[in-house]
């Protein structure tokens, strides 16, 4: 995989990506803002949602056991997966036992995380993504670039080309036509699916049920028509009661797209009951750890309160500049910058927490008020302690720290640095800075330090 810097440079050079990102994040951000300004008691609701999640996380194990109990009482088979591979294997085994051929997927970030599709395909099953964006991603062998709007990085022309090529349909870049192509193609798939795999937006503990929200209806299709329903969900995606679910449903769709609710909000409570004509006969829930328990043990524990709304992506100026693929893994934007190093370790992912100005816009829009800047700072501290740092940077910081506590030495050293910079300046500005500062002058001038410091001015003034 190319390095983070390379990925950033690639993104910066893609004009259509920049245009697409600007339009999409601007629109989604504006929709979110409008939806919240019309929500009564929005602060109280967000505070309450945060409190629910944090309370849950403080005793997650006990809540999970209770959830398992209630699921089993509803006739659901419960599986525990420590790793991505374990989760995939559980699902492959279910498919094998059922002699399945065709597996339908509704949107599930957890399944992206485990690369479930690859595992199923390698085991000989046919996998069909049913969310329009994910379907197009699958057609193109691509990866999603936004947790809510997976093909935000593709123009309609690119989508048209893809469908024309892969589905042998007449070329059209009209979104309505393209959606119709998908509807027609996938309708047949829905009717013949052997297994439906979904994620879960929320697991409701006391109810022993799961909640899935979609706009397209594929979530309903996939949980209604095939005889088997498998849910792959992170262990943290719980809420205690339906009253809590109500609280979260008030803010999930609003945060993601500005809607009050998505078109379909479905609670699934076990397999079909006697007399039901639709619904799975057999239902499984796979509880996925895959590094979440390790995140819970540390300074970024509260990131597990994330409800995957995408609001932070839409407001983040870094995401706006580089898009989702540059983050290199399943989760993008501010949430990705915290979760990816948490799930996969800092050694290979430490650029992510540093790729931020700590502006705090993410925390401001987060429906559960996650303290993302604080967590980014913790990750930076951990990166310095646990991984290799640039020797020049380390040296510069150490020197700086030591002179900062010795005012006289500080004044001498800064006078030297000022002199060096002033020598390089013309008319008070430096156009080519040396060393660590070279990146600065690639795109902007650098004001040369003053001839006389404020303290020197002040001392003179105090004498007169």
């Amino acid at each position, binding site marked *: 995989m190319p390095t983070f810097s390379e990925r950033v440079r690639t993104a910066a050079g893609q004009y259509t990506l920049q245009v697409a990102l600007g339009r999409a994040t601007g629109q989604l951000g504006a929709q979110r803002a409008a939806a919240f300004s019309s929500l009564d008691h929005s602060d109280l609701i967000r505070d309450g949602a945060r409190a629910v999640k944090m309370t849950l996380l403080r005793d997650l194990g006990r809540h999970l056991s209770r959830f398992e109990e209630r699921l089993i009482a509803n006739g659901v088979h419960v599986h525990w997966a420590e790793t991505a591979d374990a989760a995939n294997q559980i699902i492959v085994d279910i498919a094998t036992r059922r002699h399945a051929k065709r597996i339908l997927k509704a949107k599930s970030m957890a399944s992206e995380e485990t690369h479930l599709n690859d595992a199923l395909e390698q085991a000989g099953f046919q996998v069909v993504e049913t969310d329009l964006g994910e379907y197009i991603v699958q057609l193109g062998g691509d990866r999603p670039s936004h947790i809510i709007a997976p093909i935000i990085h593709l123009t309609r022309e690119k989508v048209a080309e893809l469908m024309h090529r892969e589905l042998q349909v007449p070329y059209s870049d009209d979104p309505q036509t393209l959606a119709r192509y998908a509807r027609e193609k996938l309708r047949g798939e829905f009717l013949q699916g052997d297994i439906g795999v979904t994620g879960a937006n929320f697991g409701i503990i006391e109810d022993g049920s799961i909640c899935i929200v979609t706009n397209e209806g594929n979530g309903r299709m996939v949980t209604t028509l095939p005889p088997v329903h498998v849910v792959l969900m992170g262990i943290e995606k719980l809420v205690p009661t339906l009253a809590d679910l109500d609280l979260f449903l008030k803010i999930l769709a609003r945060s993601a797209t500005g809607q009050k609710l998505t078109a379909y909000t479905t609670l699934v409570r076990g397999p079909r009951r006697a007399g039901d004509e639709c619904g799975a006969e057999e239902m499984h829930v796979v509880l996925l750890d895959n590094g979440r328990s390790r995140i819970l043990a540390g300074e970024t524990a509260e990131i597990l309160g994330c409800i995957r709304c995408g609001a932070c992506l839409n407001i983040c100026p870094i995401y706006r500049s580089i898009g989702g693929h540059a983050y290199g893994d399943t989760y993008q934007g501010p949430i990705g910058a915290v979760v990816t190093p948490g799930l996969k370790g800092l050694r290979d992912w430490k650029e992510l927490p540093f790729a931020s100005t700590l502006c705090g816009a993410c925390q401001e829009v987060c429906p559960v008020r996650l303290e993302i800047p604080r967590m980014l700072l913790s990750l930076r501290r951990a990166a310095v302690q646990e991984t290799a740092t640039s020797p020049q940077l380390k040296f510069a910081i150490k020197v700086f720290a030591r002179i900062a506590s010795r005012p006289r030495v500080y004044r001498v050293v800064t006078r030297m640095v000022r002199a060096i910079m002033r020598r390089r300046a013309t008319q008070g*500005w430096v156009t080519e800075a040396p060393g660590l500062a070279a990146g600065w002058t690639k795109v902007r001038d650098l004001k040369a330090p003053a001839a006389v410091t404020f*303290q020197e001015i002040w001392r003179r003034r105090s004498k007169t």
Partner: protein
Amino acid sequence: MVVHLFHTCLVNEIYPDVAMAAVRVLERLGFEVNVPLAQTCCGQPAYNAGFHPDARLAGRHTLAVLGATTGPIVIPSGSCADMLIHQYEILFHDEPEWLEKVHAVAKRCQEFSQFVADFLSGASLGGRLSARVAYHPSCHLLRGLGVRTPPKMLLQAVNGVELVTLRDEEECCGFGGLFSVSNPEISASMMDRKLSSVLQSGADRLVSCDSGCLLHLAGGLRRRASSVKVQHLAEILDEALD
């Protein structure tokens, strides 16, 4: 009444006029300004870079210098003010004796515009200046300290100042301290967006309360040969009072 100025390292070295302007404004309000000369730097660059033990060296010195004074501490920088008011709490989280000093100092600190606006309580600072001004709210000031309207109110109260709206006003300018050199492409991309808002706004001046943002944006404007004048809030208020 005496107030103490924590001028910040950036202002001391690069923008001394900002501190002088802040002093003159404060004196005009009737304050006597003291400058503890042993101050150096609050340690934010080291802290943001993840070097917390090193940041603590600078922090302990800063706390000692400021702790040797009593009364209000005024800081002409949103990010340094946030460092002292909120981040030291985290930095010295595990050192109870220093935490006490942190609390004692933090509650005396105020960012410059916050301090002036609080003191005036709606009264006008006075002054006149004919200018079309765009105000850039720096992130630590806006979100870290929750200071949203005081700088704008202070600007609007100057006779002759027309405050223009910046498109996507609250979006970060892309400075972010060391971020500007460690992530230069992203920083440049963010700067481009902010500067195009500034240029579209028709402003002839760009004002902010943070010298880091000003250094970054002024550098970008100069590279574009723009004539927009870049000033700290203290400087424009001081100019208006002249």
